[in-house]
């Protein structure tokens, strides 16, 4: 992991989460729990450029930022997004530390999406749907894998081409 001395990087990536959450909020959704997960892009990028301690902070900032944007901070929906973001963030961090260069953003994103969906299904089982959770599980997992794959491919392309990102490594 590259240690960066740039103190502005964490707030910048957190702000990017906030912005992407706003973009995502503006896109209509067929069902409330089908999400694109755009705000995960900065988290994936952060894995390569931020020290571990700052990645934890970024995950928390992302959770709070997203809740503020979507207006769900003090509602039970917050449980879903917090559990999902925490699970996906920590999973991506773990996978990245475990597999290092053997995994690209695509694998990271897929792992994060899977963790996010499992966490949300667990919360859904206990809070909202009970036994009926199995009816939403396939929809959630299929759409999550699809959006996770697309976001992963996009992030990988971004990381390979971005001059800004290359500058961070220099």
């Amino acid at each position, binding site marked *: 992991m590259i240690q960066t001395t740039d103190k502005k990087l964490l707030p910048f990536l957190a702000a990017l989460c906030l912005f992407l959450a706003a973009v995502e909020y503006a896109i209509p959704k067929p069902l409330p729990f089908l999400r694109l997960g755009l705000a995960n892009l900065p988290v994936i990028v952060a894995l390569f450029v931020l020290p571990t301690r700052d990645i934890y902070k970024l995950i928390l900032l992302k959770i709070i930022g997203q809740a503020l944007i979507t207006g769900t901070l003090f509602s039970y929906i917050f449980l879903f997004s917090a559990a999902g973001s925490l699970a996906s963030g920590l999973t991506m961090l773990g996978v990245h530390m475990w597999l290092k260069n053997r995994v690209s953003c695509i694998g990271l994103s897929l792992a994060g999406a899977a963790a996010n969906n499992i966490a949300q299904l667990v919360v859904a089982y206990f809070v909202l749907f009970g036994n009926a959770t199995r009816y939403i*599980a396939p929809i959630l997992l299929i759409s999550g894998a699809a959006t996770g*794959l697309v976001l*992963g491919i996009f992030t990988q392309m971004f990381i390979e081409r971005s001059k800004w990102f290359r500058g961070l490594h220099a």
Partner: protein
Amino acid sequence: MKLSFKPADFLFLAISVILIALSLLALKGNKDPVAKAVIKVKDTEYIYPLNQPRELEFTGELDKAHLIIHDGCIEFVESPCRDKICIHMGQAREDGDFLACLPNRIIVTVEGGKSDTDN
């Protein structure tokens, strides 16, 4: 456009696919152990468990139809339709069984319980 997939990416792709497959299996296999009759009368659905005997009367498109639930199955006993195909269809008791009376717009399907695919 080249995309640099790395070996471990396929691991997580596989995990995602396995999760989806498991969720679909849970949907199919892990049905409610009690079989239920889902009765659609015109545009309204009624649901009754098949483990309690019951006599039912529904007013369909034509007139009143009479169904009974007994011994874990459901059947038509009286219907105002011309051909009485619904009565001749006999009993529905297992997951996926159905009875239909098209003229009177009453459709019965059995959901849950033991099905053929479980064996």
